[in-house]
């Protein structure tokens, strides 16, 4: 070890410029590499070199031994240490594997590097670079071959052949495109994007599938709601949030007075920016906050955008109360929920949309 440190720390004084070319004359550095003594290789003490070599050999072997021990430790841990969640000591299983594996790898790695640095002869060598560009004759030759081949193929001589060949290539390039269409169900694409699981008269179900009725929610409370249709809980575009505030806090939009029920209002939680669920509700300010890109919406005022990259309000779901006192949707959302897309229209009306609330 000491010999490396010497070589690193005792960077010798730069030689006077005249002496620089004198080196290649003697090239007898011993394998022990007591490199500090370059200026006079003869002065390398054989005794010192041997001691250095021996020390280095021991250090390298020690590291290789450590690697073997690490590997044995890894295998022992792997087999014997409890690893199942909940077993006592299981939480140390992965760290123990990590430590033993690291020892094995460090042993091999550091051993090899140290070996190379202390025991191997590593001299600076000069190698000439070859020219990357070819001789002019070779270039001319290659160009000639290219030209001759093009002529021999007849591609230049027969224009019809050339054009039909290009056509065949273009046709082959187009061929896989229909295959791509097999990857998606594009039928009713726009309808799928515009519609959600909500239907006229769908009850609002909570996360456990129970219908929500008036009185379930205190003022200031919120509840995730889902449409009462099969699989509604998992529908990516249908998740909504029922919020209750004091009726006087709620600014109802014109023509939407009957979309809310006594301070209960429902918004889509699918962010109009990139589709994250906007569910962080700040009770005092009535702000809805999206944790993905920080768009902030004012739930008390039509979920208007207050801040962030979202451009549009969260769509509001028109609700009412059915005969049993449960909240139901008056219809699907009036506009497509979620992020924007090329074909998106500000409102989506199907022939069947009866526009109860409009």
């Amino acid at each position, binding site marked *: 070890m000491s010999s490396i440190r010497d070589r690193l720390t005792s960077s010798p004084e730069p030689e006077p410029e005249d002496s620089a070319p004198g080196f290649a004359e003697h090239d007898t550095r011993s394998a022990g590499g007591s490199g500090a003594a370059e200026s006079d290789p003869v002065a390398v003490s054989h005794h010192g070199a041997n001691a250095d070599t021996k020390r280095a050999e021991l250090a390298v072997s020690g590291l290789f031994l450590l690697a073997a021990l690490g590997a044995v430790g890894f295998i022992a841990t792997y087999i014997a240490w409890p690893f199942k969640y909940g077993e006592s000591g299981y939480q140390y299983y992965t760290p123990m594997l990590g430590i033993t594996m690291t020892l094995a790898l460090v042993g091999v790695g550091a051993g*090899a590097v140290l070996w190379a640095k202390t025991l191997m002869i590593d001299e600076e060598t000069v190698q000439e670079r070859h020219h990357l560009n070819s001789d002019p004759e070779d270039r001319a030759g290659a160009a000639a071959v290219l030209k001759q081949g093009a002529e021999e193929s007849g591609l230049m001589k027969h224009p019809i052949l050339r054009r039909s060949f290009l056509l065949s290539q273009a046709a082959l390039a187009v061929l896989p495109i229909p295959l791509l269409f097999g990857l998606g*169900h594009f039928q009713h694409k726009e309808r799928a994007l515009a519609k959600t699981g909500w239907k006229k008269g769908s009850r609002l179900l909570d996360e456990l599938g129970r219908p929500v009725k008036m009185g379930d929610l205190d003022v200031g409370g919120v509840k995730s709601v889902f449409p009462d249709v099969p699989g509604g809980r998992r529908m990516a575009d249908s998740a909504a949030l029922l919020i209750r505030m004091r009726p006087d806090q709620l600014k109802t939009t014109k023509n939407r007075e009957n979309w809310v029920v006594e301070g209960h209002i429902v918004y889509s939680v699918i962010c109009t920016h990139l589709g994250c669920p906007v569910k962080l509700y700040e009770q005092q300010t009535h702000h809805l906050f999206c944790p993905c890109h920080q768009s902030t919406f004012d739930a008390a005022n039509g979920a208007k955008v207050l801040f962030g990259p979202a451009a549009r309000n969260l769509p509001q779901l028109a609700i009412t109360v059915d005969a049993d006192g449960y909240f139901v949707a008056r219809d699907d959302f009036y506009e497509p929920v979620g992020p924007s897309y090329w074909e998106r229209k500000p409102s989506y009306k199907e022939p069947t949309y009866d526009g109860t609330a409009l």
Partner: protein
Amino acid sequence: MATTKTPKQNPAVGTAIWVDDRLGSSNFLKRSLNKVFPDHWSFMLGEVALYSFIVLLLSGTYLSLFFDGSSREVIYNGSYTPLKGIPMSAAYASTLDISFDVRGGLIMRQIHHWAALLFMASIVVHLMRVYFTGAFRKPRELNWLLGVGLLTLGLVEGFAGYSLPDDLLSGTGVRIAASIALSIPVIGTWAQFLVFGGEYPGGHIIERLYPIHILLVPGIILALIGAHLALVWYQKHTQFAGPGRTEHNVVGSKVYPAYSAKAGGFFFLVFAVMAALGGLAQINPIWLYGPYDPSQVTAGSQPDWYIGFLDGSTRLMPNWELRALGHTFSPNVMVPTVVLPGILFTLLALYPFLEAKLTGDKGYHNILDRPRDKPVRTALGTMSITFYLVLLLAGGNDIIASIFHLSINEITYTLRAALFILPPIAYVVTKRFCLSLQRADDDLLHHGIESGTIRRLPSGEFVEETFGVPYVYTTLLATTEERREAIEHQHHEPVTAVRARSHGKGFFRARGRVIEESAEEPPQLETTTD
């Protein structure tokens, strides 16, 4: 390698002869083992990327034996009790199994994740090294393009792998990716339906990302890495200026044995770092996030670091959206997620060609630049890094807000301004620094080292005494043709003298003397051009 068999061979020689009898490989073997590689600590950065990729292949193969890349719904019944009985995708359940029921599965998962982070980090740092030292110049533009391709594929590969466990965090990322696809004009909805199989979530995305992540993209990456290394091998590595180093030679160690031993040892050391991280530093604890549910999200949702700059640009973008001609345009989504990376990566790929065009430099370059000697390039580099760092910081604006109790709105407004103000400042400051450092170098070369002694001449004139800079140090500055000429002029000897000793100044630079391999005259300094 002798072609005739001698009775007592060592096994390696025996094998080489056996192969040579069939492939005639001895000449190739000899040349390869004697190939010279220059040494510098910064040349290891690309090695780290390569070694991380090997670790990714090894750990990833192991994981693929247990992972079920399917979005089929299952009820979890593994040993992690908090999630027992909960419906989830088979992908998420099998990731839980790898973490809790497969012996050594968790460490493999964590090594894989850490290796991915390290892979991307080392690629980026390697890219910076290549950029700032001008290693991309002719004849190495092709390798630059391969490198940019690897960086891009690394992003895709990382994102695909990050998405596979189908946990709440990664599912949110996939949701965002789907929305970004939707924002593209004309083809957006088609593209999203095509990739996801229908309206989001579509039910196919895990099944599709899986072969992309374990076969398609890694296959291409492997091929590109092969080409990248082959070009380094064939064109020979660049080197910094130094004693005996010219545009026409390589000064360094032979591949065999010391260089290979060091490089091989270094692989195990890199692997060891990942094993230590994988064993001791928790990463992506998906069991804490829970299975993906489109109606759920956690506060502080962050992608892996290499996607962070795009998340940051998305957060900083103002909410511009317009409707025209019956269609919806979403610059608030498109600009930061599609247009910006498109421009950045195009500029990155074209940089070597743009620089060559603007500087009119058509020569070959094998001696690396010192960043200070190319002030404009270096300033452009720090400018770009500043731009990138502002975006990266913006990607964590919510974390910054909660740690430092700051207003998220004010942080966002500040970073919006910083994105346009800081990069030009970085440009100007860097350029001034470079010019000053250059002047200091020139001063050192022409004026010498100050001795602190003032001599008074018999005439009464005061002069300052200086030492000449030792030859070996001046050669380190010989990065330009003018400098080389000036140094030669000063020292009355060609810089091409190959017998100077190189002075070790660091762990990987301690070595013996230069020996002369080529008996020919040192080549002329004029750069070859075609």
